């Protein structure tokens, strides 16, 4: 058995790099981390079994790549989605999108676009994980406890003692609207305060903004006063976990709250959204095209529409779909099954589908089968996750490059 210490976890976006991985002849297993995502997703069998398939039948990689190129060439409205891959994979997907005129999106971009809508019309004031850990004396969580999507958030970024606060200062955590999960109470060594538990997110933020002037119920006025007297307050939200009642307008309200408080003392936001290298996929798209995800390359031009070009909106009208999913084994299979045109899937070998894709090419997971760069969800730190096991699985980036190279030879079908 071999042990790798300090493996980088590419999954939820918190960028944990302290995972211990045991490797045996049968595969790899993580030593328990307390994170359900890492504990299950680092479990990989040495012989995952499934090879490339074309039309459901086993095929060589060459045949599968050629079939993929045939399906994607000459289409009117192809879609490249999922985009759950490392930066190299994303860049390769963007190059391919440029060639075939595809629209691109990441599977988990819904919450990100609630945030970007505000960034693009107003801007924002935000901070990053190490600042939170070292400086924050008041942390206000708006909406649901992020622990369900970002399991070690409290343990790694809030529980450690803040080094840059005066000696004896204590960090306070307050939930606005949401309810702390048991793991959070455990990680923080006690239950954090809650204000307006169970109330609507948008209404709660509005009430708090009004309370900064001293109007409203005592709980809100008190919370407003504490924000204004904190040294370095941080307002945390995970827009992807907001329910239907909370939209980009809720995010805007949070940003305006932060900005008001930040005029006299320090206050910053911490938007959490970065599962499966979402932050890296978006950033690579921004640097390559000048636009965020949900951008179309149709006609050799670029056009971006944060609503109309989401994968969920585009999928029904697309005449070919390339779905990339290299981190975890499940996909929105029911949605993909509804695609009218051919589906090419580049996914982990263990992935199952409701409907067999026209072409299936198993790819490795960045940070497990091959090295790859993934962004932390605060978008500042890119991590280089190294390989842990050789199972003969190709990088998504290489498969995408090969599909691109085959396009020149492939007559459109």
């Amino acid at each position, binding site marked *: 058995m071999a042990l790798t210490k300090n493996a980088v976890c590419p999954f939820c976006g918190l*960028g944990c790099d302290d995972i211990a991985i045991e490797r045996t002849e049968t595969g790899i297993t993580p030593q328990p981390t307390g994170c359900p995502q890492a504990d299950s997703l680092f479990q990989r069998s040495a012989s995952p079994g499934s090879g490339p398939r074309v039309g459901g039948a086993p095929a060589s990689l060459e045949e599968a790549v050629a079939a993929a190129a045939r399906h994607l060439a000459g289409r009117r409205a192809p879609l490249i989605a999922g985009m759950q891959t490392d930066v190299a994979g994303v860049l390769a997907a963007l190059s391919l999108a440029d060639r075939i005129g595809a629209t691109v999106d990441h599977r988990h971009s819904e919450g990100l676009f609630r945030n970007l809508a505000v960034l693009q019309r107003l801007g924002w004031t935000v901070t990053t994980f190490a600042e939170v*850990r070292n400086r924050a004396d008041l942390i206000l969580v708006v909406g649901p406890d992020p622990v369900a999507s970002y399991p070690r958030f409290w343990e790694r970024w809030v529980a450690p003692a803040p080094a840059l606060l005066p000696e004896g200062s204590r960090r306070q955590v307050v939930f606005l609207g949401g309810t702390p999960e048991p793991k959070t109470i455990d990680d923080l060594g006690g239950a954090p305060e809650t204000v307006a538990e169970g109330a609507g997110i948008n209404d709660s933020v509005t009430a708090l903004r009004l309370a900064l002037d001293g109007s409203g119920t005592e709980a809100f006025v008190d919370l407003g006063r504490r924000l204004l007297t904190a040294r*370095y307050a941080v307002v945390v939200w995970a827009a992807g976990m907001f329910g239907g009642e909370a939209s980009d307008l809720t995010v805007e309200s949070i940003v305006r709250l932060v900005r008001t408080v930040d005029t006299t003392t320090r206050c910053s936001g911490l938007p959490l959204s970065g599962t499966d290298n979402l932050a890296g996929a978006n950033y690579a798209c*921004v*640097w390559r095209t000048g*636009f965020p995800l949900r951008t179309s*390359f149709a006609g050799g031009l670029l056009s971006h529409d944060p609503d109309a070009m989401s994968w969920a909106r585009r999928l029904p009208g697309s005449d070919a779909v390339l779905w990339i999913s290299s981190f975890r084994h499940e996909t929105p299979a029911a949605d993909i099954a509804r695609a009218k045109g051919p589906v090419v899937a580049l996914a982990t070998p263990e992935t199952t589908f409701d409907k067999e894709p026209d072409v299936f090419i198993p790819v490795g997971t960045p940070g497990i089968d091959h090295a790859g760069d993934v962004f932390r969800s605060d978008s*500042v730190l890119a991590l280089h996750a190294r390989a842990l096991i050789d199972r003969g699985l190709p990088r998504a980036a290489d498969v995408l490059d090969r599909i691109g190279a085959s396009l020149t030879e492939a007559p459109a079908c």
Partner: protein
Amino acid sequence: MLIKLAGGRLFDPANGRVDVTGDIWIRDGRIVADPGPGAKPDETHDLSGRIVMAGATDIHSHIAGGKLNIARMLMSEEHHAHVHPAHGLCGCGSGIATPSTLTTGYRYAEMGFTAAFEPAMLGMNARHTHLEMADIPMLDTGGYLVLGNDDFLLDLMASGAGQSAVNDYVGWMLEATQSLGIKVVNPGGINAFKFNQRKLDLDEQGPHYGLTPRDIVTTLARAVHDLGVPHPLHVHGCNLGVPGNVATTLETIQATSGLPIHMTHIQFHSYGTEGDRKFSSGAAAIAEAVNRSPLLSVDIGQVLFGQTVTASADVGTQRGTAAVGSPRKWVSMDIECEAGCGVVPFKYRDKSYVNALQWAIGLELFLLLDDPWRVFLTTDHPNGAPFTFYPELIRLLMDRDYRLSKLAEIHPDAPAHTTLGSIAREYTLADIATMTRAAPARILGLEDRGHLGVGAIGDVVVYTDQPNRAAMFEKPDLVFKNGQVIVRAGEIVSVVQGFTHTVRPGYDNLIERRLAKYFDERMGVNIDTFRIKDDEIRNGQGLVRHACNARGDGC
């Protein structure tokens, strides 16, 4: 592959050749000596009458990294309005002030630039910046690491660890982040802002650590010098943009005298408080101080009129700019106990007194600084203007009549407050070749770049001599990168990848123990996760390391 560039007018100040007619020979990407009468070139370009220079280098251009991506997203209107379609060999892109990566490479190359350096790379954002720089085709790149507001350095200094420990830290960071140089931005001021102190003067003690900006800038300048890093400390001083900051700038020059430093976008640091509007030019005083400080170099950060976006680690200063930004939206970030980031879209208007005077101050500085080896052509892209304005800027410097015609168009009260109209100097082609080629390569320690001598890389640009210098520098006839024609008559004919330039000075790696603990306890990141390995740079293809000759006592 042997190429002969025959009979051009060579402007090669690094080798003492100015307007000397001669041949250049390139073999396998590098300039070689004339191989003699029997040599049979595979390719010959008849350049008689044409002007030949080395590829141009931009020493200060924000081309990649987190703040650029934020700026691109904030400048969404401009990106929608300026989509650059895919054509020929070129992929599509968008944007003017914050062009996407492919567009950045194409536009620079079309203007004869073969290298551009990102001047503000944060340590925790370095891997991102390198990934993004590697996606810019056509150009050599590299980054200057931002230090001087990082809690580790300030703690090291405040705890009395001494200069040699600082040197070790700086050396370690240069290596770990694969940087080419060190930049300091508003020394201590960004850190102070995190403690809610919103202004910090050169001799004011900052919160928590009790250090002054003067302490920080001199300590870092010393460290960079002792380690033998070729590029002196790149200084973005205190009080950027503040009327009256000319005094701070002069004091900073004084504080660092005896040590080489490079003061960047000095136009933004040359403002007086005279006149009814309490905003005036300090260019003459600054130029005089620079002219008599042989160890000091500067770049200008010229303002040119139009829409752009300002992006800086100097977050507190940017909060002030936000009130006058356009369109009115802005981003402010505190980043990883290292620095920050402020992004504010901005429109410089020739009918605004302040903007018009900023434009004039930049030009005064260019024209009053008498040594083209110590002044560099920059707009602090995109902060003063997009880099695509360089041909216009060159024309303003080379053509007095044109300059006067533009001076007549600005805010009517501004010309009375600048000496620009009375300055007769016109830059020569030799000055331009020095300022954009020979001097930047020398100040960065890029020995085989910026000149046309034997051993130099085959980055060569060929122009037709035209009276309209903007037209001339906008569209060279030929651009060679590593000996390959990449641009012909302003069109990209070959897409190539450049190199990433770095340094790796020697240092006592005992510092790593303290750093490992710091990364573990404070940053929540393992020190090995932070460190960027050589094979990560351009996938192991294209890392260039430049020598450092330590000047410390070695103990």
